[in-house]
């Protein structure tokens, strides 16, 4: 059902966990639907210095969360905002069609985290 790369990320998720003193946190999804993910970022010089995730959900939800952390790490915030759901799916060698909408939320989670960081920074000034 899932590609080898999805299973690899499911088996060995990258950057799983929390960042206690995160600069931005984004949560998307809903446990009622079966998928909920939280993305934590640390920002340094306008780049994503560290990123971690926590996810409740199916294999696709966990694999996309893991993949987004790999795609975003080291990128400028501007470039990270450009990562799309399609990019995540493509990097994983594709997702089953039914999973494309419900479980492919990781890009949204990243964008939420960046927005939250920017908002925090804006109010701090």
């Amino acid at each position, binding site marked *: 059902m899932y590609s080898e790369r999805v299973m690899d990320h499911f088996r060995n998720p990258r950057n799983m966990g929390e960042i206690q003193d995160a600069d931005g946190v984004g949560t998307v999804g809903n446990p009622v639907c079966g998928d909920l993910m939280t993305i934590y970022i640390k920002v340094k010089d306008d780049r994503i210095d560290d990123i971690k995730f926590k996810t*409740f959900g199916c294999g696709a939800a966990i694999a996309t969360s893991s993949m987004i952390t790999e795609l975003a790490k080291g990128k400028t915030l501007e470039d990270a905002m450009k990562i799309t759901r399609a990019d995540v799916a493509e990097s994983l060698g594709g997702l089953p069609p039914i999973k494309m909408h419900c479980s492919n939320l990781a890009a949204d989670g990243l964008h939420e985290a960046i927005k939250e960081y920017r908002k925090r920074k804006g109010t701090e000034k």
Partner: protein
Amino acid sequence: MRRVYMDHAAGMPIDQRVLEAMLPTFTRNYGNPSSVHSFGSEAQKAINEARSKVAELIRAEKGEDVVFTSGGTESNNVAIRGVAYRNRDKGNHLIASSIEHMSVINTCKDLSKQGFNVTYLPVDEYGVVDVQALGEEITDKTILVSVMYANGEIGTIEPIREIGEIVRDKGSCFHVDAVAAAGQIPIDVREEGIDLLSLSSNDMYGPRGVGALYVKAGTRLQPIIHGGGQERGLRSGTENLPGIVGMGKAAELAKAEMKSEAERLKRMRDGFIKGVLDSVPESFLNGHPTKRLPNNVSVRFNYVEGESIILSLDMEGVACSSGSACTSKTLEPSHVLLATGLKHEEAHGSLLFTLGRQNTAEDVEYVLGLLPGIVRRLRKMSPLTPKELIV
């Protein structure tokens, strides 16, 4: 790697003895039972024998009361539509339980679009149909009541005899979907007041693509498949001879071995359930603790999602199912779990093991050795898990 198949509700292997009974029908005894010659009459004889064996499994009066179909879904369609269309002049009210198989629920929904009214009976937290509600809802216009013998997802066995009495008193027709129950627990269509009963061959170690419908003598159905008039005109089309012979053999074996096999399965089931509940914090049993199919272990875990547990177990060679939306084609969690009062997020964390003839106590031990670690790992990943559960 060790491979443990515990998804028998989804599909079963064919019993070797069933396969051997079927083989001659492919190459030697292959006639069409409608033919006049000896090839035809040999095939007819084989089908009649199979009919009798299926009848014996459910204690029907005679083989002629059994109509062969292509499986459980078709049996449910033939029964429900057959009664509805035939009895339009008597009434347009149907009653079904809210935890029926989709082949019943979706047939009822389709009939709703054709002018029939359908009442869905609620169930309690264990999935037992509310018999009192049936008494309140059934009227002179109720032409059919459809309640499953047992639910395959949560294992709960329904109070069929009690329901049968209420239906009989009202003079309505009682259809029972026994796909999950047949071959596992004794069924007696005459004692239990059943007019129509659906069966599936693969759910008792027979081949796929064949099923049966018990039709009590005198029950009038309008056929939904028209053609050469086979199966008393209720299911036209040349008989699936290998399938029917296989189903007959499967029914014979199920009847002969039911008692000992059910005892063996119940022991495994109860050890399995206890093992899960004892070793995984915040784990729960779905369905009834005792009125339960011998092979059914349906559990759920807070804070994790079922598909991710299935994938994790699959990596260790274990096959099972879940009622999570993530494993369904509709992206909705199991209507059965929701009907028992579970919240969506609870239904997502459900896991279903259905045991079978090839499973052993060692298989159960193997799965029990894996499950706590898998749930712990996924809980560690989940943002919903309370801190104190992560160690």
